[in-house]
């Protein structure tokens, strides 16, 4: 009995393993998410930020993508990615450097510098201690703390080395899960700085009070921000809330309040797969009327 059952169980487990490994999903990456011959490639560099005043004691990695078309005499647009390590990898869920290379080359988005930032970690002071993970504190908390960290601290440092736009119109912020609500929070708090938001499977739930946004959006005077929301019908339903319902509420509130928004409900769970595969379309929509988007509507 055992000899028959055990290999069967292992085979079943392996099946699950392989389907994950091979990324079997109805959402497949299109040509804009793959390297194409003749498309100039931007450069990605890795950096570390260890002297935050907004989040004292934190250490984090971040990456900067500079497109091949960048010309230091012309201000470039800016797009920030929360949980940046996941977005910047060419084999990650979104393959951002490849997508940016293709879309900038095709004139579907402006020349844009990508900044990919990981959440902070506060290492223990003594050996053997557990680090204090700051992701939830930075991403799930409402208020302008994270925006402050970006706007007053990290981005000005990057702005010393690169010619970045000084207009909100040229600045976007993107994130997944808690990074998704964080992207929205940054623009909600500082619409004077960020005008474009992309959220994959955003945690508009009660992790640290973020479930209030649909109510706030309906009552607050409309802010000049454009929002793309991606969500999956198999997403989380847990102690913090129900992700699909929360995103439905967000979309309904944005519609009610007259926002320029898009909402895509797929079938995935809490993963970046669907959002990642449609990133070229998301970016095309997001940047469609920017003055520096050659193939845009402007």
């Amino acid at each position: 009995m055992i000899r028959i059952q055990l290999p069967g169980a292992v085979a079943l487990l392996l099946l699950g393993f392989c389907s994950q490994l091979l990324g079997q999903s109805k959402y497949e990456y299109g040509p804009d998410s793959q390297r194409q011959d003749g498309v100039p490639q931007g450069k990605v560099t890795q950096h570390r930020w260890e002297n935050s005043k907004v989040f004292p004691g934190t250490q984090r990695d971040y990456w900067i993508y500079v497109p091949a078309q960048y010309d230091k005499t012309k201000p470039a647009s800016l797009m920030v990615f929360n949980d940046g390590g996941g977005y910047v990898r060419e084999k990650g869920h979104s393959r951002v450097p490849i997508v940016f290379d293709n879309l900038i080359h095709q004139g579907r988005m402006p020349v844009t510098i990508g900044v990919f930032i990981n959440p902070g970690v506060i290492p223990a002071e003594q050996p053997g201690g557990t680090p204090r993970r700051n992701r939830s504190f930075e991403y799930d908390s409402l208020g302008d703390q994270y925006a402050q960290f970006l706007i007053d601290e990290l981005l000005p440092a990057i702005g010393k080395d690169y010619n970045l736009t000084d207009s909100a119109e040229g600045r976007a912020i993107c994130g997944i899960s808690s990074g998704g609500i964080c992207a929205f929070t940054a623009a909600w708090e500082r619409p004077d700085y960020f005008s474009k938001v992309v959220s994959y499977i955003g945690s508009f739930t009660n992790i640290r009070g973020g479930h209030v946004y649909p109510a706030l959006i309906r009552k607050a005077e409309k802010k000049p921000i454009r929002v793309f929301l991606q969500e999956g019908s198999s997403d989380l339903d847990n102690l913090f809330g129900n992700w699909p319902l929360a995103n439905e509420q967000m979309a309904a509130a944005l519609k009610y309040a007259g926002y320029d928004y898009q909402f895509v409900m797929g079938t995935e769970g809490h993963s970046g797969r669907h959002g990642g595969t449609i990133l070229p379309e998301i970016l095309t929509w997001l940047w469609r009327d920017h003055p520096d988007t050659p193939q845009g509507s402007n």
Partner: protein
Amino acid sequence: MMKKYLVLLLLWSGTSNPLNAQDLPISQIMIDGESWELVAEGYQFTEGPAVNDAGEVFFTDVPASKIYKVDLQGKVTLFSDQANKTAGLMFGADGKLYGTSIGGKAIVQFAADGTPTSMAEDVNCNDLVVLADGHIFFTDHVDGKVWNVSPDRKLKEVASGITFPNGIIVWPDQKQLVVSDMKGEHLWNFCISADGSLNHQQPYSAMQLPIGSMESGADGMTVDKVGRLFVCTSLGVQVFDTQGRLSGILSKPQRAFLSNVVFGGPDLNYLYATTQDKVYRRKLNTTGVRFTK
């Protein structure tokens, strides 16, 4: 071959979903049919539950200046009648009971016969935590401060600026200190240095507040083996996960002030709660931590 695939599988299951940060809903620790059960009653104001090596729980009746012991059979006996309004209690790795004597304005150590000896004097104190390396940290709600008593009994101020620091505990690794603010919203985290100083003060967790109030009513805290924090508040025992997120709220045992909690019993799987005139306990599907090494 099979082993190799299983290893791969384990690697995959551990790494494929970094976004799916581990949630720790309180449903994981609650046991069907188990609720608060009365342990002892008839006191004025119970506080400071502390557990010894055997799993017996000690508590104080603050105004009466008495400390009691609940043995493993549930029998309550007097341990000390010289407590001088001791509010916080905790056993050290040396097996001795330490306390915060509000009446004596002192951090004290109790001998086996219940006689106190001062470790630090002329201090405003509320609650304390005793680390395995001998460092003691205590809250001072009068001045809004946290103090350290080093193993060689030197007293120093290590934090300030908290409205009403009350409960105090460490993570299971004993490298991270957490202080509750009774008149505010936050749990404050600190990294502990080897010399007992504190760094990187941060309002890491926001507690649920009663409707219409800006005060959590937070008092004593304890921690379980995975690092969940159990915080006594006006709304009940608020449970926080290791990322500082509220995981749920256990109801109060009675409609009265809830002062403190500790895991007790031989397996440290009963949460003991002191609340005004009574002491309760409930069995949970997790265990506490002994700070013995």
